[in-house]
C-alpha cells in the first residue's frame, strides 16, 4: 500500500508499553482519599420474594459506613429501552443465585465482607425455572409478571416462500443442535469507583464521577442518570484502561450503579471490584441455544430455503436478549444466497444470571448449526464441502431477502485462500487414521446500522484540536478495551493529516471531555468512530491546506500532506525517499526529536523566508492558526439510510453498513479410545475490508479462533438447580496455551466503499466459523456428527461408541436414583442426561442413546 504511510503498516498499539510494564492504570488500581470498599450481598436462592431485610447488626459493626438496599434507588433500568427490568439492588424479588440484594460500604474489604454476614434477609422461596423449554410452559410464578410463559420476546419471520421451496427441494436436512452456555472470562474483573463532589455549601452530594471498566461509558452515564435521578450533565464517566470486555462490559453491570448508590449514601468515594465468582454471576454471556434447523437444497447443492427455530435460555433479565434473538435470525442472511427464510426465535427467561452480548453476538450458535448441517448436506450430495459453499455465494452489491445490504464481499477469496493454504484438495480425507480437515464460514456486522437507542443522532462524533507546535489531540468517545481503538484512531488521524503517529494524542472515553460515541460493541468502532475521525481530520486538514496554499502559491486542492510535510502536488521536493524512517533530514525538517517538538527558532526562521515550496507540518499548522484562529475540526458518522434494513418487526437488528467475512479450515485428530480432540492447526482467512493495522487484525483473528476453540471443546457453564457449579477460572476451562493450535491468520482486503480507508470489522466475525470448522473436521476424522457443543471427550466418545456399535458408555448409569423427575440439570446435561421430561425427538442426547441402543 504505497499510497499510505501509516495505514497498513504493522504498528505497535499506542498503549502497549503502559500495559506491559504495569504503568497503565485499570479501575481497580485507582484510589481516592477517604475511599471505601463496597461489597455486595447476593441472593442464595434462584427465585424468591424478599420479605424483610434487617441490616441493623451489620450497621453496628465498626468500620461500616453505609448499607444500601433496593429502596435506595428504586428506578428500573436495562440496556435496551424495551428491557428496563433490572434494579441495581433487588426491590421485591431475587431472580437468580447471585442476584444483588444489598451493598455494604466499609473502610476495608474484610470489614465489608464480615458485615455482609450480619445482614438478615428473610426470603419466601418461589418455584424456579432452569430449563428454557420447561420455562416456556410456565403459567404461574412468572419470573417477571408482565412476561407471559416467561418468554421475553418471540419473533416469527417469513421471507420469500419457504414452504414452497421445501416442497420442491431435492433434499432436506433436519436436525437439532445445542450450544451450551459460555461466558466471556475477560482477564480484568469488573471494577467501578464512584465519587460525589460534596457541595461545600449544602454538604449534599453534588456532581458524580465514575471510573469504570466499561465498553459503553455513555450508556453508563445515561443509566446512572435514570437510576440516581440526576441530570446527565452532573455525571462524568471515565473509562480507565480496560482488561478485555468481549461484550461482558457492553452494558451497565449492577456494580456500576451500586457503587454510585453506596457512594451517595456514604458521602465518600466507593470502589467495588467483583470477585471472579461475581463476574460469573454478572455474566451476560452467550445463552444456551436450542436450534432446530432445516435446510432445503437442490441436487447441485444450491440452498433454496432455511427454516430455523431457536430457543435461547436468556437467564433472569432481558439484557441484550431481544437483540440477541434477532441477530440469530437476521444473520442467517448476508453470508450465502438464501432465497427463502423462515425464522422462529424465542428468548426465554429462566432463574439464572442474565445472558447478554458476547463476541459474535447472536450469530455464533446458529452458525455452528448451519455450517454443520451444510457439511452434512455436502456429504449426502457427495459434494466437496468447500465447493458447496462456493455454489451458494451472494452476488453483491445486493440486498438479501431479509433486507441486509451487502457491498464488499471477500468471502470467495477467503474460501480460496484457506483451501489453498491448507492444501485442502490434496489432504482432505487423506490424513490417515482419526485425523481430518473441516471447513466453515462466518460473517459479522461492522456495527449496527440502527442503534439500540433509536435516534437519528450520529453513532460517533470525534473532535480534533491542533496546537501551534503541531501536536494533534483527538477527542473520541470510542472505548479502548484492549482491541486497539486508540491506535486505530491515532492511525487514521495521522494518515489523513500526513503527520507522524507520535504527534497524535488520543483522549478517549471521558464523558466530560469527549463527544458522544455509543460504545465498543458490535464491532462498530473502526467503521464508525474511524469514519468520524477521518471526517474530523479532513475538516482540519482543509483549514491547514487553505493556509498552506497561500504560502505556497497554489490551489488548496493541490496541497499534499505526507510524512510531516506539506507540499504541492507533483512537487517532488517534499517527498522523502524513505518514508517514515526518521532520517536526519526528516528530523530537522519536522523539528521533532524523540517525541519532543522543537519550538521557536527553527520555526521562526523558516516563517520569515517568504514563499515556500514545502512547509513542515508545524509551519503549516502555525500558518493555519494565524489565518483561522484556533485549529479544530469535528466529524461524525451515522450509517446511511440504505443500509438500515427492511420494515418488518425486528428489522432493525442485523443491518450494518458492511459485513466482514471469514472462512476457516481446521485440522484435528481424535483419540478414539478417549474421545479427546486435538486441534493441530487452523487456517483462518478474514475479509476486513482493509487492514489498517495488520498486526492488530491478525491478533483479532487469532483471538477469535482461540475463543471459538474454547467454546468448541472446553468451555461450558454447568448448573445445578440454578447454581453455577464452575464459577472460577479453574473449573470454567478456557483453553491454556498448551492445547492452543497454530493459527495461520490470512488477511483478505475487499476495500469497502464506505469504511474508513475501506476498513470493516475484524474482531468478531471469525469466531463463529471455528466451532463448525472443528465439528466438520471431527466428522472428516472419525465420521461422527456432533450436535452439541462443547465437544467434550465424553460426548465425542459416546458418539464414537454409538457409531461403531461398540459397547456404549451409559452416561447416566451412576445417577442418583432419588433425583427428582423434573429435569433440573443441564448446561451440558452432564449429570442427568436422558432423565427428566420427554426430550425433543431430535435432541442429540436421545439420538445418541437411541443409536447406541440399536447397535448393541
Amino acid at each position, binding site marked *: 500500500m504505497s499510497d499510505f504511510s501509516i495505514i497498513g503498516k504493522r504498528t505497535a498499539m499506542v498503549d502497549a508499553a503502559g500495559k506491559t510494564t504495569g504503568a497503565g492504570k485499570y479501575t481497580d488500581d485507582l484510589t481516592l482519599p477517604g475511599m471505601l470498599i463496597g461489597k455486595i450481598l447476593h441472593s442464595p436462592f434462584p427465585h424468591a420474594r424478599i420479605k424483610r431485610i434487617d441490616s441493623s447488626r451489620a450497621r453496628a459493626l465498626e468500620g461500616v459506613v453505609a448499607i444500601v438496599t433496593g429502596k435506595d434507588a428504586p428506578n428500573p433500568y436495562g440496556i435496551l429501552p424495551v428491557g428496563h427490568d433490572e434494579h441495581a439492588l433487588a426491590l421485591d424479588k431475587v431472580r437468580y443465585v447471585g442476584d444483588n440484594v444489598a451493598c455494604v460500604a466499609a473502610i476495608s474489604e474484610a470489614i465489608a*465482607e464480615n458485615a455482609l454476614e450480619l445482614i438478615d434477609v428473610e426470603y419466601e422461596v418461589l418455584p424456579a425455572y432452569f430449563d428454557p423449554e420447561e420455562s416456556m410452559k410456565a403459567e404461574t410464578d412468572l419470573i417477571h409478571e408482565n412476561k407471559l410463559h416467561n418468554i421475553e420476546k418471540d419473533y416469527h419471520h417469513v421471507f420469500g416462500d419457504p414452504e414452497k421451496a421445501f416442497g420442491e427441494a431435492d433434499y432436506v436436512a433436519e436436525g437439532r443442535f445445542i450450544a451450551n452456555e459460555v461466558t466471556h472470562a475477560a482477564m480484568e474483573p469488573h471494577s467501578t469507583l464512584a465519587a460525589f463532589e460534596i457541595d461545600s455549601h449544602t454538604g449534599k452530594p453534588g456532581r458524580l464521577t465514575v471510573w469504570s471498566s466499561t465498553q459503553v461509558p455513555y450508556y453508563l452515564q445515561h443509566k446512572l442518570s435514570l437510576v440516581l435521578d440526576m441530570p446527565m450533565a452532573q455525571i462524568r464517566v471515565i473509562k480507565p484502561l480496560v482488561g478485555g470486555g468481549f461484550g461482558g462490559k457492553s452494558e451497565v453491570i449492577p456494580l456500576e450503579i451500586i457503587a454510585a448508590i453506596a457512594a451517595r449514601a456514604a458521602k465518600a468515594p466507593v470502589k467495588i471490584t467483583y470477585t471472579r465468582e461475581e463476574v460469573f454471576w454478572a455474566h451476560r454471556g452467550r445463552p444456551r441455544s436450542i436450534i432446530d434447523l432445516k435446510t432445503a437444497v437442490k441436487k447441485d447443492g444450491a440452498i433454496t430455503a432455511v427454516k430455523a427455530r431457536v430457543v435461547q435460555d436468556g437467564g433472569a433479565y432481558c439484557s441484550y436478549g431481544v437483540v440477541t434473538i434477532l441477530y440469530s435470525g437476521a444473520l442467517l442472511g448476508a453470508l450465502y444466497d438464501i432465497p427463502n427464510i423462515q425464522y422462529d426465535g424465542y428468548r426465554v427467561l429462566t432463574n439464572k444470571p442474565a445472558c447478554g452480548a458476547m463476541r459474535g453476538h447472536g450469530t455464533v450458535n446458529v452458525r455452528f448449526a448451519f455450517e454443520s448441517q451444510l457439511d452434512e448436506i455436502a456429504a449426502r450430495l457427495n459434494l466437496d464441502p468447500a465447493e458447496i459453499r462456493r455454489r451458494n455465494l451472494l452476488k453483491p452489491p445486493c440486498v438479501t431477502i431479509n433486507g441486509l445490504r451487502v457491498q464488499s464481499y471477500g468471502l470467495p477469496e477467503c474460501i480460496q485462500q484457506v483451501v489453498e493454504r491448507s492444501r485442502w484438495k490434496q489432504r482432505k480425507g487423506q490424513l490417515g487414521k482419526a485425523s481430518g480437515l473441516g471447513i466453515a464460514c462466518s460473517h459479522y456486522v461492522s456495527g449496527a446500522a440502527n442503534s439500540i437507542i433509536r435516534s437519528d443522532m450520529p453513532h460517533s462524533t470525534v473532535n480534533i484540536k491542533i496546537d501551534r507546535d503541531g501536536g494533534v489531540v483527538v477527542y473520541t468517545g470510542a472505548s479502548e478495551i484492549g482491541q486497539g481503538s486508540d491506535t486505530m484512531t491515532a492511525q487514521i488521524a495521522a494518515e489523513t493529516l500526513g503527520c507522524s503517529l507520535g504527534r497524535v494524542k488520543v483522549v478517549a472515553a471521558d464523558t466530560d471531555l469527549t463527544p458522544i460515541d455509543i460504545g465498543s460493541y458490535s464491532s462498530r468502532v473502526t467503521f464508525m468512530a474511524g469514519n468520524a475521525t477521518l471526517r474530523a481530520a479532513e475538516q482540519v486538514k482543509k483549514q491547514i491546506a487553505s493556509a498552506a496554499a497561500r504560502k505556497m502559491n497554489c490551489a488548496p486542492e493541490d496541497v499534499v500532506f505526507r510524512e510531516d510535510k506539506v507540499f504541492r502536488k507533483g512537487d517532488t521536493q517534499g517527498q522523502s525517499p524513505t518514508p517514515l524512517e526518521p532520517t536526519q533530514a526528516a528530523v530537522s525538517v519536522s523539528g521533532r526529536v524523540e517525541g519532543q517538538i522543537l519550538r521557536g527558532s527553527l520555526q521562526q526562521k523558516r516563517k520569515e523566508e517568504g514563499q515556500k515550496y514545502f512547509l513542515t507540518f508545524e509551519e503549516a499548522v502555525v500558518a493555519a492558526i494565524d489565518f483561522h484562529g484556533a485549529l479544530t475540526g469535528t466529524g461524525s458518522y451515522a450509517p446511511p439510510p440504505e443500509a438500515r434494513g427492511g420494515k418488518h418487526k425486528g428489522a432493525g437488528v442485523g443491518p450494518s453498513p458492511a459485513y466482514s467475512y471469514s472462512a476457516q479450515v481446521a485440522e484435528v485428530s481424535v483419540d478414539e*479410545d478417549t474421545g479427546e480432540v486435538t486441534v493441530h492447526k487452523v487456517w483462518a482467512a478474514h475479509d476486513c475490508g482493509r487492514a489498517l493495522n495488520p498486526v492488530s487484525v491478525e491478533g483479532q483473528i487469532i483471538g477469535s479462533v482461540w475463543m471459538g476453540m474454547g467454546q468448541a471443546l472446553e468451555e461450558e457453564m454447568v448448573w445445578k438447580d440454578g447454581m453455577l457449579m464452575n464459577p472460577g477460572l*479453574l473449573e470454567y476451562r478456557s483453553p*491454556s496455551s498448551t492445547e492452543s493450535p497454530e493459527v495461520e491468520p490470512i488477511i483478505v482486503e475487499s476495500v469497502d466503499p464506505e469504511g474508513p480507508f475501506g476498513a470493516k470489522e475484524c474482531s468478531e466475525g471469525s469466531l463463529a466459523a471455528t466451532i463448525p470448522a472443528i465439528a466438520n473436521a471431527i466428522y472428516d476424522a472419525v465420521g461422527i456428527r456432533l450436535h452439541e457443543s462443547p465437544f467434550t*471427550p465424553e460426548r465425542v*466418545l459416546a458418539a464414537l461408541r454409538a457409531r461403531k456399535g461398540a459397547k456404549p*458408555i451409559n452416561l447416566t448409569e451412576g445417577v442418583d436414583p432419588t433425583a427428582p423427575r423434573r429435569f433440573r440439570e443441564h448446561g451440558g446435561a452432564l449429570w442427568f442426561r436422558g432423565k427428566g421430561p420427554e426430550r425433543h425427538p431430535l435432541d442429540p442426547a436421545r439420538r445418541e442413546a437411541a443409536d447406541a441402543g440399536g447397535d448393541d
Partner: protein
Amino acid sequence: MSLPEFRLLRPSTVEEAVRYLSQHAGNIRVLAGGTDLIPSMRQRLFEPEYVLDIRHIGELKGIRQGAEVEIGALTSLTVIEHSEFLRRHYPVLAEAASTVASPLLRNMGTIGGNICLVTWRKGCGFCIKKDGDLCHVAPGGSKCWAVFSGDTPPALLCLDAHIEIASSAGLRRIPLREFYTGIGDSYRRLEANELVTRIFLPAASADYRGIYRKLRIRGSIDYPLAGVAVVLKRSNGHVKDARLAITAVNPAPMLIKAAPQMLEGKAVDTNLAEAVGDLAAKTAKPLTTSALTPEYRREMIRVFTKRAVLAAANN
C-alpha cells in the same frame, strides 16, 4: 474474597514448628507452598487463628540419596520434576510431579503439600465438608465423598513410599498407604499437632519402569479428573513385579491390590492390559464434578490403565 485475618508463625526448625503445632492444635494450619491453603482460606474453607509458615525450615528441603532416598517435605514439585536422579531411578514420581497444575504453581507447590492436599475445594454452596449437611455429589448420603485430587500420591504409593511425621512427642514413620482414610472430610491420619517432614523411597523400588497418565481437559493447570500410576519391573520379557495406583476417583488415592498378582510372571499383551484396566475401573468410584461424568471418568481409568501398563511393559 479477602484473606481472613490470622497470625503468621515462622519457625526455622522442626522442633520449633511442632511446638507451635501442639500449642495451638486445632486452631492452626501448616503453610508449605501455600498454593492450596491460600485459595482455601480465601474461600473460607478454613479460618485458623494461626498459620504456620514452615518454608524457613531448611532441613526439609531437597533430595538426599543414601540407603533409601529421602525427600524433604518442602521440596518443590519443580525440583522433583527436574531431578536427574529421580528421573532415572524413580521416573513415575518425576512424571507425576510434572503434571501438577502449571509451571508457576509447581515452583511454589511442595511434595508435602501435595500429599496433604485438602480434598475438594469449591465454595459453591455448603456441603458436608463445610458447615452443611447435604452432599452435592451423592445426595441422600451422610458420608463425605470429597475427592482426593493429588497427582504424586499414586506414584508414591506405587513406589511403596513411607512418610515421616513429627510431633512434640517425637518422630513416627508410616507407609504412605496407611495415611489416607478414604473418608472425604477426615481424609488423612494426621493429628492436629503433627507435621509431615520427610518422604522415603525404598532402594528396592528404584529402577522400575514407571508411567503416570492423567485425565484433564486442558493441557495445563487442571487437577486430575482421573489419574493412573504404574510401576513395573521385567525379567526375560515377563513381569517380575508391578504395582498400580489410581487417584482423583475416590476420596483417597488407592493402590489396586490385586493388580500385582494379575501381572506377575506374565508377558503383557493387550488382553492382559485390558483385564488390569477393568480391575482398576472397578475400584474407581468417581463422583460428580463440574466436568466430565463419573461414568466417563471410570471408563478413562480403564483406558489409561491399559495404556500405562502397555507402555510400562513395552517401553
